[in-house]
């Protein structure tokens, strides 16, 4: 009767031995209390590993609630950025435009330009706020140039530096947000103003 090696006992604890060896080990465990006990020890260690992972504690200076809130916020932001990239019609890494798409874009541009010339620049309304919301006596507004806030005749604007806003959102609780995708780097800049 051959006893288990340490590796065999360790693997027998989770049933990871090859088929024949597994069968032999099961039979051997029935008649050998020493090997059975070793396998049991390794089984207990499996639950200890589980315990160590589940019951991990953060360094004292870090509070889980803060970390959790930060992660949830960043996850939302990450998903928003993805949605913004999708809204611009391209994913961050997709720089190559297939020729069919290029022809389609060129054709659409021609149609838009023709429409603009036919309508004439005079008939175009002046650019005004794309979205605005009033909150606590303040007017929050966002347009293609950025986001701003006005109150009693004075105000401020956070202007986009390079590109036009790809997405403007207002929150009814009193916030306005514009997202801009940099055409060269595909980086997204989010500007948000909220009333507190």
């Amino acid at each position: 009767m051959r006893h288990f090696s340490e590796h065999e006992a360790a693997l027998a604890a989770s049933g990871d031995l090859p088929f024949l060896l597994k069968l032999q080990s099961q039979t051997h465990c029935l008649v050998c209390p020493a090997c059975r006990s070793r396998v049991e020890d390794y089984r207990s260690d499996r639950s200890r590993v589980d315990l160590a992972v589940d019951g991990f504690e953060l360094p004292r200076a870090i509070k889980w609630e803060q970390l959790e809130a930060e992660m949830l916020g960043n996850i939302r932001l990450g998903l928003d950025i993805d949605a913004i990239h999708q809204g611009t019609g391209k994913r961050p890494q997709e720089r190559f435009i297939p020729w069919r798409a290029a022809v389609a874009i060129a054709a659409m541009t021609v149609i838009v330009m023709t429409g603009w010339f036919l309508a004439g620049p005079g008939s175009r309304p002046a650019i005004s706020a794309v979205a605005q919301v009033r909150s606590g006596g303040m007017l929050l507004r966002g347009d293609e140039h950025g986001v701003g806030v006005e109150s009693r005749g004075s105000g401020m604007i956070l202007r986009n530096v390079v590109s036009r806003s790809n997405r403007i959102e207002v929150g009814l609780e009193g916030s306005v947000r514009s997202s801009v995708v940099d055409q060269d780097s595909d980086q997204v800049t989010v500007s948000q103003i909220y009333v507190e």
Partner: protein
Amino acid sequence: MRENLRRVFALIYRIVGNVADAQDLTQDTFIKALQRKDQLKDIEKANHWLGRVASNTAIDFLRRKARVSFTEIDSLVEPLPDPVNRRADVEMLRSEEAAYLDHCLESLSVRERTALVLRDVEDMPAHEVAAILGCSPATVRSHIANARTKFRAIYEKRKEAR
């Protein structure tokens, strides 16, 4: 999402060994998972699937890190930054048993620890662990066996010293 956040964070933390990287990778995991949620066929297996996404994300990160520093992932025996300082601020609030278990896990190599955590905590079969680690199931079994024998030896040694 909240209940899974802690589980995923704990899993990644055990693989990469520090809070900052674990935080970034947990966020990446959820963003990836939510973007690809249509790939999930069976909602019953959502936790298992999320565990796979998390471990793949963590392993990819370690591979990139290994490539940058021109070392192999196997040679990253101790990925935890400055264990002495780390222990000092962690130790105070920990129970004795939790500290023992931590020490046992941290004594393993990255591959051993990852194989052990995926097998024992995520309950992944050896061939799935092999796919994630990019090696054969036999190698994974060897990592698991090494990890368990080391874990046991250290656990016993510290228990005797009490």
